[in-house]
């Protein structure tokens, strides 16, 4: 397994372990795409099945400002995450840490707003058990939110490891992988924003 160590190129790709880890994570993201695709399909099938609960158009129209801010926060966080990896490639551990912390703060802002939003819907009478449609909504958006939460916790662990060990083949691979994860969640959110919120407003 101690195959050829490369002397140049990005740190995270230099060792065989690093290359395999990154490929494995890409495949895992493929599986995650299927997971979210299934949830989106479920949502689409159950669309309009609101039973006695409020219709989504009522709630989404009044809350569109907030979901727009959430979208803005998450898209920006993907950008800052990209800068963080850029700094890492330049060998700047401090820049990596700074930009990653900014990313996490934006992510936390997103999460806070999402919790507030869910809470608001529940008060309006749209809860997980209230109808098939709302079950699908909460589970789809909630699964995304749970992923964001895990991503934040994971990145915090990595920041501590960066402080302990600095930039090595291993830590840079871990940061690169968490950045892939973060961008992936951003892409999913774009589908949620357009597929759930914008579509839900007009239909």
């Amino acid at each position, binding site marked *: *397994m*101690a195959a050829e160590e490369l002397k140049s190129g990005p740190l995270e790709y230099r060792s*065989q372990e690093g*290359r*395999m*880890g990154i*490929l*494995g994570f890409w*495949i*895992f993201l*493929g*599986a*995650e795409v*299927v*997971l979210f695709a*299934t*949830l989106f399909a*479920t949502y689409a*099938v*159950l669309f309009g*099945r*609101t*039973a006695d609960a409020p219709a989504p158009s009522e709630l989404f129209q009044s809350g569109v400002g907030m979901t727009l801010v959430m979208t803005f926060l998450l898209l920006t966080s993907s950008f800052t995450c990209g800068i963080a990896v850029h700094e890492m490639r330049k060998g700047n551990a401090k820049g990596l840490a700074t930009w990653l912390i900014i990313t996490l703060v934006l992510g936390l802002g997103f999460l806070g707003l999402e919790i507030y939003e869910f809470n608001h819907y529940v008060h309006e009478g749209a809860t*997980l*058990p*209230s*109808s*098939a*449609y*709302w*079950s*699908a909504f*909460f*589970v789809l958006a909630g699964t995304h939110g749970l992923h964001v939460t895990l991503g934040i916790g*994971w990145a915090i*662990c*990595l920041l*501590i*490891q960066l402080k302990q*060990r600095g930039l090595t083949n*291993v830590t840079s691979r*871990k940061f690169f992988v968490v950045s892939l994860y973060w961008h992936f969640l951003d892409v999913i959110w774009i589908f949620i924003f357009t597929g759930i919120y914008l579509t839900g407003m007009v239909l």
Partner: protein
Amino acid sequence: MALDEFFVTGEPLIYAGMVSIALVSAAIIFLLTYFKRWGWLWREWLTTVDHKKIGIMYILSALVMLFRGGADALMMRMQLAFPSLEFLNAQHYNEIFTTHGTVMIIFMAMPFLIGLMNIIVPLQIGARDFAFPFVNALSFWSFFLGAMLFNISFVIGGSPDAGWTSYTPLAGAAMSPGPGQNFYLMGLQLSGIGTLATGINLMVTILKMRAPGMKLFHMPIFTWSTLVTCFIIVFAFPILTVALALLTIDRIFGSQFFTLTGEGLPMMWANLFWMWGHPEVYIVILPAFGIFSEVIATFAKKRLFGYSAMVWSMIIIALLSFIVWVHHFFTMGAGAFVNSVFSVSTMLIAVPTGVKIFNWLGTLYKSKIEFTVPMLWSLAFIPSFILGGVTGVMLGMAAADYQFHNSYFLVAHFHYVLIAGTVFACFAGLVYWYPKMFGHKMNERIGKWAFWLFLIGFHVCFFPQYFLGLDGMPRRLFVTNIAEWLPLNVISTVGAFGMGAGFAVFVFNIYYSYRYSEREKTGDAWGHGRTLEWSTTTPVPFYNFATVPYVDEIDPYVRMKEEGKTTFDEKKLKPIHMPSYTGQPIIMMGFLAFASFALIFEWIPLAIVGLLLAVGSMIYRSFDYDDGYYVPVDEIKRTERKARGL
């Protein structure tokens, strides 16, 4: 919760089950203590990350599960042959056909094949272990604990009883209250994590760790079948994960996905389940095709006929497997157009499968066949599987399916493909690679007894079921007191006990061979090995290959033998990097299993505690930078010289 709600009570068969579980557990604990083997068990097996040992644990567990599923089957056959004895009541019968199906597919067929992949694939491609050995151990423990969780349900809490397909609304909270159905959901969820991880792991292993020079189209066919299977696993298992999660949330937290209230859609479960379930069928059959191809080429002593056609047909089958799921419920009423589309896509699968059949026949054509036990299983597979395949095409015709649907015709069909395909392959593969795993062959004479008993029993058991189906006998029926069905049911039961006897002889053979079989002296046990796994010494050293060979052709070991070469080159020895053993996988999965058990009984605070412990152990793992160790050249030299008699 009162104790009599926790334990299942009032059923003599289940009391007997409890007693035997207690006795077996006590015996294991006693033996381990008496022979002071606890440390050995922990150091050598429970903490291992070696793919060969993990593979052996998979296969052992799968054999135990085959016993459990088989016992379920025999109880059902008893009931159906002698309905007036009232051996089982309706509830118990429902539970048993549910656990039989689930155990056989999820906890027997898949782990058996994954076990063989674990041991053989790295050896076939010249790798020293999996890409992620730690994850491999994690996968095994997730499967094992998931299986245990599911199996314990019949004495604690009550078995699931809604069929292995667990259709809603029957499986929902309203019609199946209590922990039974939760056992199904959590058991499958827990073991599903491991299957997905194995899929990713093997894919990276095959794509990144092949011996230098080995292109994809130089790989042994079993490795190819594994790669294609992993592709299906990665894209099908998340669907099951979601389906199980949605039903769990329905049952425990009151959502309305599959309910009859709140505008839920019960038939969506059938769609989600089979969008995973049909690819799953190919997850258990493609590796079987791979095993048969290896065995047939070896004992026909020829290169596999139509190697690239074999590969491409597997790839086409894998793609088609995702677009046929509706054929499991043509009678749902999706309309003529939808049914026609899925009817055509279903029948299309017969084309690449037919290609494979002709390639096997082409390999056998004009060859000097050696009739060893693995070859017998493979030769029996071809005609038996065709019987299953052709009836599958009959079922695939949507209009005709309205007659066959949920009858014993269907039961006979899928047992013909799953047993003649998957189970024969498991036996063939185990016997074929047995010398590589344990350093001695299984006894051929006893093996032939097991083969003939099982093969004849199989046909006697399932062939009459086609006719029972055509006579209108529905599946999952507990009383068959209709006179014209009775004779065929009795014949079928006789066959089932024949299969049971075959399995018993097979297991006896494991013991007999351990005691009396000649120990292997060379690595190439059958004398006709064609692929790299036979070039290793027996027993295989823990690092597999001291020096990795250069490979630029199919069946490289054939030429190596002709030229008198080995893969070992003492001049090229370098220290070998190996991963350290660790107890983290079993502990991590133990926490998750604890959380799942609590969730099954809807003890939410305990489930949260288990989940937090699991997350904590993952964080611990993230901070653990154990990088493995290097095996020094001296040690490799000593091991290899001893094994090769240099």
